[in-house]
């Protein structure tokens, strides 16, 4: 009996120790989040100080940052979930292009209304997520290969449906997408001294609500905790009784659903579609997640970090364009350089952790 107690005591000691370690790694997540938020604030203050005359000192600029990136925020949330489970999805750009084109064709030629188009977009996103999730989770195929195929499939289908660039010419949809929220008491005074209220798009509200929902899902529910567990160590997760395959499948399904919502927001914002639509969106979303502190190896990540990751890369792009370089290649190269920096930083942090253990 005594020996049993001893064993139990040792066991509980072990659990206690592992809890401590878990806490350390959690503070690590908080550390990465702090870096991201600080980086964003520092960059924003610097841009106000040095580029204030280019419009960075206006409040509307801050809201435009959200207006431009609402779709990206939603899509990056989906990618964060997938990356927390230790997988990846690079098909979101392709599915966004497909959603835009299909929805525009339906709006223009078949007279669909706003809600049917919304359901159509969600269905396409969910279909991508479900098929890819099934192949990755249950057939154990490499996520990168599957979603690379998905990316080419999406763009290829766009070319099958419509080769040229097309615009929405549905009056109801245009009216809805042109609507803005006027924010009272917040705004800028223009050159003539007239006060202009700041405007926010409706898509931004949806994006922010989704961020809060995903945060609750990840932190408060069993499914959210399973995402972290599977990404951290799928073997231990299996031993703890988590259905690893189903969790992976749900992660991809959720990512597909969010890609559907994001694709719809993208359409809502741009009102056009083409084969080249949303090129490099997957890379922007991955970059935002990585900048926000999601580890590529899985198990670590925070949704608010992703939000700030999107805002950081957004403001860097704004700065690149505001500096006045007309060359079209700088935005992409800057993004890639940022991505490279953060990937290498993460790899160094990971290797240091390993050597500590």
């Amino acid at each position, binding site marked *: 009996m005594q020996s049993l107690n001893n064993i139990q005591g040792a066991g509980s000691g072990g659990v206690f120790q592992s809890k401590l370690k878990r806490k350390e790694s959690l503070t690590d997540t908080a550390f990465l989040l702090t870096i991201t938020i600080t980086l964003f604030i520092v960059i924003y203050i610097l841009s106000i100080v040095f580029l204030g005359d280019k419009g960075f000192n206006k409040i509307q600029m801050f809201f435009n940052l959200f207006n431009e990136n609402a779709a990206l925020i939603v899509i990056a949330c989906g990618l964060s979930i997938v990356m927390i489970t230790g997988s990846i999805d*690079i098909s979101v750009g392709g599915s966004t292009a497909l959603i835009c084109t299909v929805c525009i064709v339906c709006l223009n030629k078949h007279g669909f209304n706003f809600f049917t188009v919304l359901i159509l977009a969600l269905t396409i996103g969910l279909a991508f997520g479900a098929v890819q999730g099934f192949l990755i989770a249950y057939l154990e195929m490499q996520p*990168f290969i*599957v979603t690379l195929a998905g990316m080419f499939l999406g*763009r290829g289908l766009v070319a099958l449906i419509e080769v040229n660039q097309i615009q929405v010419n549905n009056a109801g949809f245009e009216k809805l997408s042109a609507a803005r929220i006027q924010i009272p008491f917040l705004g800028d005074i223009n050159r003539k001294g007239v006060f202009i209220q700041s405007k926010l798009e409706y898509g931004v509200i949806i994006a922010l609500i989704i961020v809060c929902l995903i945060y609750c899902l990840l932190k408060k529910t069993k499914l959210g905790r399973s995402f972290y567990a599977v990404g951290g160590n799928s073997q231990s997760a299996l031993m703890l009784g988590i259905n690893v395959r189903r969790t992976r499948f749900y992660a991809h399904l959720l990512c597909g659903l969010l890609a559907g919502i994001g694709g719809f927001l993208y359409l809502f914002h741009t009102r056009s579609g083409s084969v080249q639509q949303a090129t490099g969106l997957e890379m922007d979303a991955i970059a935002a997640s990585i900048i926000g502190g999601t580890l590529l190896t899985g198990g670590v990540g925070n949704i608010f970090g992703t939000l700030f990751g999107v805002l950081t890369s957004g403001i860097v792009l704004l700065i690149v364009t505001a500096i006045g370089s007309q060359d079209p290649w700088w935005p*992409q190269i800057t993004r890639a350089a940022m991505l490279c920096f953060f990937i290498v930083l993460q790899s160094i942090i*990971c290797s240091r952790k390993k050597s500590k253990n």
Partner: protein
Amino acid sequence: MFRMNHQIDNGRLVPAFKAFVRHRLFIPIAFLSFLLLLNIFINPGFLRISLGRDSSGNPVLIGNIINILNNATELVILAIGMTLVTASSKGQDISVGATVAIVGGVVMRVLCGSETQPAVLHASVFVALLLGCLAGMACGAFNGILVSKFNIQPMVATLILFTAGRSIGSMAMGGLKPKAVSSFGYYGNFIPGFPIPTPILITIAMVTVTCLALKKTNLGLYTKAVGINDKASSLNGLNPARIKFMTFVILGFCVGIAGFVQSSRVQTVNPYTIVPSIEMDVILAVALGGNSLGGGKFNMTGSIIGAYTIQTLTSMLTTLNVNTNAVPVFKAVIIIMLVAIQTPVVKSFFSNMDVFSKRAVSDGKERC
């Protein structure tokens, strides 16, 4: 029942057939023959090769087969490098298309300077080839360092160049789209007076060099060893990081050659549209060649046959008037099916069925 009788009656034939089916080259050869048959069915004159004259009156070989061999050049060269990278680092390089754009940009910049229509080449073609290959190898080295030193998954590491590459290519050309004089086109089309397209000769040279390198050096052995188990190979005195790095640099060299041929074909380069989605084709060629995309042992012959198969498929789809942008749909479906067949889950499913049939056979024998 039928299967059982068959096995008992033709006891010697079935193993030979089974051995052929189980051979690593079975899938690529079967798929290639199937496509060729389909092509002959669609177009009875598919295999015809004739001697014609080009616009300047030089004798050239004309025919569908020649076209496929000619157009597959870039794919074959890239598949050689990609096979090595896949085998050693258990992942693929998805930046090859973007790197081709960088190489093309460098080659055009060296040849044309900052003029859009130069009357003469600004440098010798050899210098352009050399600098193009160096640019390709530099990109390969960048990917290689990320993969081997920082232990980043190859596809994530190459994602950086995948997006930035085409922009860098545009930057290398200074945003211009210059057109070089026609003598630069000898390397992508025909040398006057010689009827065989030059790219076919370049392919033959590259394949020969690869064969020699795999036969005479330890390159193949070391790559396989690192891919199967890099810890074990490092205990045996190899340096896995260096070998992984080397395979990426070799792929960079292949990209250099491919980019040179590609830019020589039309003597101009648009970095944003050059070789669209070729990374997909190359990965498909490697997978089709019977290579596991999870690394380890590789089969170079299979990859090369795979590359020709992809080109046959592409030209067939083009003949059927499928839009160029829509071709990836078919390839994506094929790649998913091929990779699905290779996965352990599906394999074990089929082997379970095999076990079942064996059991049935043995039961039958007992009853007899």
